[in-house]
């Protein structure tokens, strides 16, 4: 992943370093030229000084220092005087001007000048390596601070870039902190010019998303209303027909059954839609699962009793944080499934208890169970075990467990489906995390 901060810091530091380097090279060169000119004029002064010297009898004199050398030649080419650190040979050609020469194992900067007054050649040299050392020292002092300040510059750049990017970080935090169903506008006030288009684009996207969610919610509510009323009308008319034609019971019974299937399918599709975690407006509160199970069983008892099945509730009162309405749907679906796919006379056990990983709600039946190969598919929409030829011959649309799964997801609950170990039948367990906020661990584990 590329980082704007790293990029900016590397780019800025490289630019600063390059700029400093170019400046230093340029400064070094111009300082060098300056220094050379200065030293050359010093050499010129030295020549002028020597010119005023009176010629002594001994041709050999000590040089003012070993770093300087001089020779005085007559116009006709005789050596008049020389410093001790030169030989008898002229140290340069007899021609006015500065020159670089080699002698005595060193490189020298040499000035020759013809002394018109006394008709002689004055040759003065200065060791170049010393000059260079001197110039280097001067220049190094000028360039050093620039180089030394680079780490400081780097630190400041690091902080400034970090500070400049803090607004991006803040925006990222706000986006990251949003709940899945929170489609409200970003509150970042006064975004910088560069971020304003991003914030605007995100807000625009959120608004359109919210509109489409609302539209779909309205659609589902409208569809519910529009479909339920004609269904009610059909049911009433069938009821009236049955009163008028008591003999036509077979056809009417089939018609009645089909209408019930249709209305069940419509209700389940609407439930499935309504309970998708993206669109569900959950109203989370403390719910006692045991008490809720009591009331759901009470409501469904007539259906279960009609199949001569028995139902019991075991376990103890357990509170979960959940949405009451959807938990009622979850319980109803599980209990009705257990009843529907078990034979007449079967027994259903609802159990609510505390388990190792949270609160466990399980619904066990004594029906045929589900073949292992098909267990993983039962959450698929419209999937029915054994197709439409389920041995129970029960009507159904294959949405019940998808809805249960949706509601389970809403509650961050794990759903485990297992065939009973100690006999025929199926147990569906819903395990609600003890701490709702805790991260989910989707691992299969033994049901409670």
């Amino acid at each position, binding site marked *: 992943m590329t980082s704007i901060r790293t990029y900016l810091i590397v780019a800025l530091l490289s630019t600063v370093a390059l700029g400093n380097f170019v400046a230093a090279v340029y400064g070094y060169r111009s300082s060098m030229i300056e220094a050379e000119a200065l030293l050359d004029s010093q050499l010129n002064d030295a020549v002028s000084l020597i010119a005023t010297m009176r010629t002594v009898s001994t041709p050999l004199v000590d040089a003012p220092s070993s770093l300087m050398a001089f020779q005085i030649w007559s116009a006709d080419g005789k050596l008049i005087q020389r410093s001790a650190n030169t030989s008898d040979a002229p140290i340069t050609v007899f021609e006015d001007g500065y020159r670089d020469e080699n002698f005595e194992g060193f490189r020298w900067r040499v000035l020759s000048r013809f002394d018109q007054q006394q008709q002689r050649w004055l040759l003065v040299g200065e060791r170049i390596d010393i000059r260079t050392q001197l110039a280097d020292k001067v220049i190094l002092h000028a360039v050093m601070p620039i180089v030394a300040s680079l780490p400081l510059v780097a630190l400041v750049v690091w902080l400034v870039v970090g500070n400049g990017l803090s607004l991006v970080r803040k925006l990222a935090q706000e986006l990251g902190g949003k709940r899945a169903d929170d489609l409200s506008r970003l509150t970042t006030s006064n975004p910088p010019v560069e971020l304003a288009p991003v914030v605007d684009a995100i807000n625009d996207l959120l608004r359109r998303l919210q509109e489409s969610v609302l539209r779909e919610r309205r659609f589902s*509510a409208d569809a*519910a*209303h*529009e479909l*339920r*009323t*004609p*269904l*009610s*009308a059909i*049911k*009433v*008319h069938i*009821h*009236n027909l049955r*009163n008028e034609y008591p003999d036509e019971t077979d056809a009417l019974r089939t018609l009645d059954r089909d209408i019930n299937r249709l*209305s069940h399918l419509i209700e389940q599709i*609407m439930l499935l839609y309504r309970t998708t975690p993206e669109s569900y407006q959950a109203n989370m509160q403390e719910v006692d699962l045991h*008490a809720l*199970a*009591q*009331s759901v*069983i*009470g*409501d469904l*008892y*007539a259906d279960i*009793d009609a199949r001569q099945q028995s*139902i*019991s*509730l*075991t*376990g103890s009162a357990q509170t979960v944080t959940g949405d*009451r*309405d959807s938990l009622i749907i979850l319980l109803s679906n599980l209990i009705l499934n257990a009843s529907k796919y078990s034979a007449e006379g079967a027994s259903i056990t*609802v159990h609510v208890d505390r388990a190792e990983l949270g609160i466990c709600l399980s619904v066990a039946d004594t029906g045929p169970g589900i073949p292992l190969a098909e267990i993983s598919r039962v959450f698929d929409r419209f999937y029915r075990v054994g197709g439409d030829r389920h041995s129970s011959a029960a009507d159904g649309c294959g949405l019940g467990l998808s809805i249960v799964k949706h509601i389970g997801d809403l509650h961050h609950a794990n759903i485990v489906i297992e065939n009973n170990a100690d006999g025929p039948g199926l147990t569906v367990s819903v395990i609600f995390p003890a701490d709702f906020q805790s991260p989910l661990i989707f691992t299969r584990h033994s049901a409670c």
Partner: protein
Amino acid sequence: MQILLVEDDQSLADGLCKALRNVGFITNHVRDGKAARHVIEVEPPDIVVLDLGLPDMDGLDVLKSIRANGSTIPVLILTARSSVDARVSGLDLGADDYLPKPFETPELIARLRVIERRLSTVLQSNIHVGNVSLDTIRQQVCLDDVPVELPRREYMVLKQLMENIGKVQTREQLETRLYAWGEEVSSNAIEVHVHHLRKKLGSDLIKTIRGVGYTIRKP
């Protein structure tokens, strides 16, 4: 018994009028909230069956205006809205019952009968289940027409179960009916009452739903 049906769907309204007339209810039908308010004002029916999604106003507003005028006409709400909130707000506003669409016609008739019973000056005082009968006025229970003496709380349990025949009564529900707030209730009090009732009236009458409560099945 005169019923005013407020429903904008013509087909459903026609079918309902016919079904209700078949069982002896005098049924009139209006299609919108304004007409409903007018009829209720000038010629109050005995029971109002009210749809919530009306073309001109929300059915709940009709209910509000009925109650605002101090009328106690029983109102049964019939609606395609399914959310529990809609149901609760309906009952909060003073509806007597609530039936979500699509409903079974016999269920609607049964609920209207309940309201009718509540309204009738001659209270229906006898409830029969199999060979057991209960006279709520004389507080008399008979088994095969032979009076059976029951202590007050056993009578209350039986009455509660017989009045809600086919429905499950949880232990908590029964306890709140039988005991005042703060009164000491032993954990198995209801079980003991049911045990005694079974001894006196036969073991098949009251059925236990383990972990949930008790019920008397429709014969």
